[in-house]
Structures are given as structure tokens and as C-alpha cells.
């Protein structure tokens, strides 16, 4: 019997500071035991528990796509004890990963559909995983149009800037990058809040699903826009965050009514959420 609490040991292969405020760093991990990589088979939308001996554990969305082999990446916001410690860890340090945890975006259902991806701030990690996954040559033909609205408060807070620029240049994905405001005279993308930009770009709801991840305030104001565009609740998909310990539906703290966010989620449709207590 495999112990689900025992982390796979990983080595930090690189650490990249993503944002100007230095609060977000992307950690690239390589499994110490190569056979663990196969055991960690994951699907975009899932998360993992990162483990630092002596500090504790944290649930973090998987930022890489399963189409990227040999490593996994996590973008970690500096918030509490474990994340602050991690921000001082370096290449070569050893820590642990448990998972993958939770459900994923419903890729079977999404086959042949257009996708509208709406992200804000640092909640873009599993969306990055999803975009890389869909843009993979083996997968791109399985999906229709892909529209991405991604916003941050200012340009310095956007994640994965090199990739955003590369996706901008492609003709098989429609990028709508936006910032709340900027003093950069050379800023060539949108300026405006995510809900307003979503409304302005008005991606069609025809044969479409929307995936939305971001701060609660962004979600609150974007949902009415998506509804207005014609997305019914069962075609609006979101991913939730909760305080977690076990990550496998046992320790009891991350439930919303009957559902454990760690095991039954973190991915829910708006329709599913409407049947649960609004306790998140």
C-alpha cells in the first residue's frame, strides 16, 4: 500500500522570479528517483502538495503541462511560513512533492469545443498548464478557438511574460493581455479590468466553455459578463482554493457542504457550485 502522505523527493532545478514585486517565483523540480515522475502522472487543472522538511506543506497548482517531460513547475506566491521559506531556497536544494491531487479541467468534455480562458493575477498557473497542453501539436486539433483574457494590476505583475509574448505571435490562439493601468509608454496590449476587456472582446459562447481563475473580485464581476455573452452555468468552469492539509479528502477542513475541494474539486462548474453552500 502506497502511503499517500509520503512526498516524492525532488531537487530544485531552477528558481525564476516572475514578478517585479518579487513575490512570485517559479520553481522547477526534478524527481530524485526518476521512476517517481511516471507515478506523478497528472492532467492540467490538478494541484500538488509541496513539502519542505522542517517547515510544512502547501497546496499549489501545477503550472507545467504533462506534455512537458522531465520536470514539473510550480509558481509560488510568498504568503506564509512554507512559501516564505521556499522563496529563500536555491537550486540544488531537496524538498518533496505529493500528488497529483484533485480533479482537472474536463478535457474529454472540452474536445471539439471553443475555449475562453479568463485569468487574473497569480491564479494563472493551471491556466498556463492548460494552454501549453492545448497548444501542443498532438492536442491543438482537438479544440476549437482558444481565447485568453489575462490581466494583472500592472505589466510587472504578469506571469510567464516570455510565453505570453510567444502566444501573442501565434495565429491559433487569441491573446487578450490586459493590465489595470500602466505608465509604460510602450505597452502594446490592453488597459482595463478583466471583466471590461472580456466584455469588449466578446468571445462567442457558441459551442464554447469558459474557464475562469482569479481573485474573487475579478470572478464576481466577470461572471455576469460571461452570462451576458450566453455562457450557461454548466459551461463556466472555475477552480477553487482552500486551506488544505492532507490533499486527499481525509483531514476534513476544505469541504464546501458535501464536497472536498482537494478531492472532489478544485475544479467545479458554476452549476455545481450553485448547489453547494456559499462557504468559500
Amino acid at each position: 500500500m502506497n502511503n499517500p502522505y509520503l512526498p516524492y523527493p525532488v531537487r530544485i532545478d531552477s528558481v525564476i522570479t516572475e514578478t517585479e514585486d518579487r513575490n512570485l517565483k517559479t520553481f522547477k523540480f526534478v524527481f530524485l528517483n526518476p521512476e517517481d515522475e511516471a507515478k506523478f502522472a497528472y492532467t492540467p487543472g490538478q494541484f500538488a502538495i509541496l513539502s519542505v522538511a522542517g517547515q510544512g506543506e502547501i497546496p499549489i497548482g501545477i503550472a507545467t503541462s504533462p506534455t512537458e517531460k522531465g520536470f514539473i513547475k510550480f509558481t509560488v506566491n510568498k504568503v506564509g511560513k512554507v512559501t516564505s521559506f521556499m522563496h529563500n531556497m536555491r537550486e540544488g536544494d531537496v524538498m518533496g512533492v505529493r500528488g497529483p491531487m484533485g480533479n482537472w479541467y474536463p478535457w474529454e468534455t472540452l474536445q471539439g469545443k471553443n475555449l475562453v480562458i479568463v485569468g487574473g493575477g497569480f491564479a494563472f498557473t493551471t491556466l498556463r498548464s492548460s494552454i501549453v497542453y492545448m497548444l501542443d501539436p498532438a492536442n491543438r486539433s482537438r479544440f476549437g478557438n482558444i481565447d485568453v483574457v489575462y490581466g494583472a494590476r500592472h505589466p510587472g505583475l504578469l506571469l510567464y511574460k516570455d510565453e505570453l509574448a510567444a502566444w501573442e505571435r501565434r495565429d491559433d490562439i487569441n491573446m487578450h493581455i490586459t493590465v489595470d493601468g500602466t505608465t509604460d509608454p510602450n505597452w502594446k496590449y490592453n488597459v482595463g479590468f478583466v471583466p471590461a476587456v472580456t466584455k469588449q472582446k466578446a468571445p462567442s459562447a457558441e459551442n464554447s466553455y469558459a474557464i475562469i481563475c482569479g481573485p474573487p473580485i475579478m470572478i464576481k464581476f466577470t461572471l455576469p459578463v460571461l452570462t451576458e455573452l450566453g455562457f450557461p452555468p454548466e459551461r463556466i468552469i472555475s477552480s477553487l482554493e482552500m486551506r488544505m492539509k492532507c490533499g486527499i479528502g481525509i483531514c476534513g477542513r476544505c469541504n464546501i457542504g458535501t464536497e472536498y475541494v482537494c478531492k472532489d474539486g478544485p475544479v467545479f462548474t458554476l452549476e455545481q457550485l450553485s448547489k453547494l453552500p456559499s462557504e468559500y
Partner: protein
Amino acid sequence: MSDMYITKGKLPGVIERLMGRYRVFAPVKKGRYHQFARLTGAAEADLAFRNTRLSPKGLLHPQAERMFEYSLAKDDPERGIVKESPKDYSPGVILGIRPCDAKAFQLDDANFDTQTVKDTWWVRRREALTLVGLACNTPCSTCFCTSVGSGPFETAGLDALLVDTGEGYVAKALTEKGKKAVDASDGWDPAPADSRGKIDAATKAAAQSIGPSFDPETLARQDMLELYNSPLWEEVQFSCINCGTCTFVCPTCWCFDIQDEVNGDQGDRMRLWDSCMFPLFTLHGSGHNPRAVKTQRVRQRFMHKLKYYQDKYHCGAACVGCGRCVQACPVNIDIRQVGRLMASPSCVCPA
């Protein structure tokens, strides 16, 4: 297997022989209360108890337990790699567990031992332990096991059941595991001819002494959101001081925390009982807290036991009617009363 019998004077000898083959856990008197403890001598066991103050859940899910250990020493090539802490999975017997507490283990299985995820420690300890129950001849005034699918002589979840018939104990093995334990303890005689009649009468008398409480099936049929949004929670939470005692004494409260503890350059990852009564239980790193308010936490506890669990696992409420929370609550919140209020959620007057 037919019923076996010993006089009470022979019990220490039986326990002695059991201890030769098993780790034996039994109620031991500590101060004013009884609690389950690993026996070091047969005389420590005291079966003249109503119920233990804490449930025996700690034998399967200890209040504080070392999960893993690791070195943080700079020169250790294994530095930072988390490793299993050794555990004792040798055969054990929980002697004198009440039928309600054995039923609680079955309810807890739905959480720890699922199709997709298995909590290794829980599952392996479950396998290692044989449950030799003791029927309740005199239930407490706070008992309500008969309302929630158990009973003072209930055998479900047990491997063997002992019944106190006055001068002695009648034992009935219920499973292979139970038969092995009875065999290993040796010294039993066939039960006297009149013992079955005595047990039947005691079973009836015990069940009749338990008053009505609430009907979990009514709650199963109710709408989850309607119950969640009911004004009854304001009423229920009013006197609660969020001390968490109910969750610690409850045999079906399994919530836990995971914490790292470091001593010098050695560390342990610990699993510790936690409680939905505490605001930290759900506090996000960002400061956001989905259950920041006491009402939300009180509602969570009762909704989880009596509604969410039923809706999720379809095996009744996560309550066995042991009444420990009723006895231990410093402000007299009574889950039987809450269950009745939930059964008529539009009415917040005392049922």
C-alpha cells in the same frame, strides 16, 4: 461458534493469556474517568465502567502521532528527505469497546479507507486490531445509540461481544478474528443454559431505557441548502464557546492537522487532532477565512455529522449516539436537540 462463559474471577487469567498473543487495550480507571490504555498487567483492566471519557479512536488515529522523520543536518546526504516513522502493526485487541464505538470505526472507514484513497496508518491498524466489545447493560441518560443505527447490544463492527451476566461474562465470537482472540485467551466454559434468556432480557431492558432523540433519515431527505440557510443555527450557536471539546471526545470526529516539529537538526512531521470549531482550521494564507464566524463553524460540525456525511456516503449519520459530546459540553449543547431542530428547520423554538 456457541456462547462461551467465564466467571468474573477468571477474567484476569483470560486477559493474561490474551496478552501473551496480543497487545491488549482495555478501559483503565484514571482518576474519576476510564480511558483506553495498553495493558501492562491484567489487573489494570476495569470492565465496571459506563463508558470511557474519550472514545477509543485514538488507538487507530492517535491524538498526536509521528508520521515521518527527517534529518536537516548540513552534511547529511539524505538531508530534507522525509521518511516513514516506524509503527507497531502487531496483532492487538481492544477489549471492552462499546458497540457504539465499534460502529464509529465503521463510519470512520468511509473517510479513511475509500476506493481511491487509503490512509495507510488507519487501514493497517484496523487490520491489526480485533474488537472484543462489551454490551451496555445500563446505558447513560445521554445515550441515544438506538436512534442512529446502533444499540447497546449491537454486534455490527465487532469481532466478539462480551455480556456481563452478573456473576460472569458470556462471550460470542462474531468473526474469524474474534474466534481467534477467544481461543487465544483460553479458559472459557460453555455458557450455562439460561444465559441466552438472560441476554435477551438484558438486551430488551437496555434498549428500552434509552429515550427518543431524532431521526437521521428525516434529515437525509431534507434539502441541504435549506438546512444550511435555516435560522436555527443562530439559535444553536448562541451559547457555544467554540472550545472544541465535543470534537475531541467524539468517536467520529477525525479531522487532523499536519505540522513539522524540529529539534536541533532532526525533525518530525506530526499528525495532530484538529477541530472545525477553531477559526485557524480553515484560515487561508491570504487572511480569507470561509468559516470565520462561530455560527459557520457550529453549523459545519452538525451539518457534517448529520447531513453532509449522510448525503456523501449514504450509510447513515456520522454519529453513533455515544452521548459523549452531550456529557462534556460546558454549555449544555445537546446534539439530540439539534437533530430535532434540524428535522423541522423552519421552527427554531425548542422541539
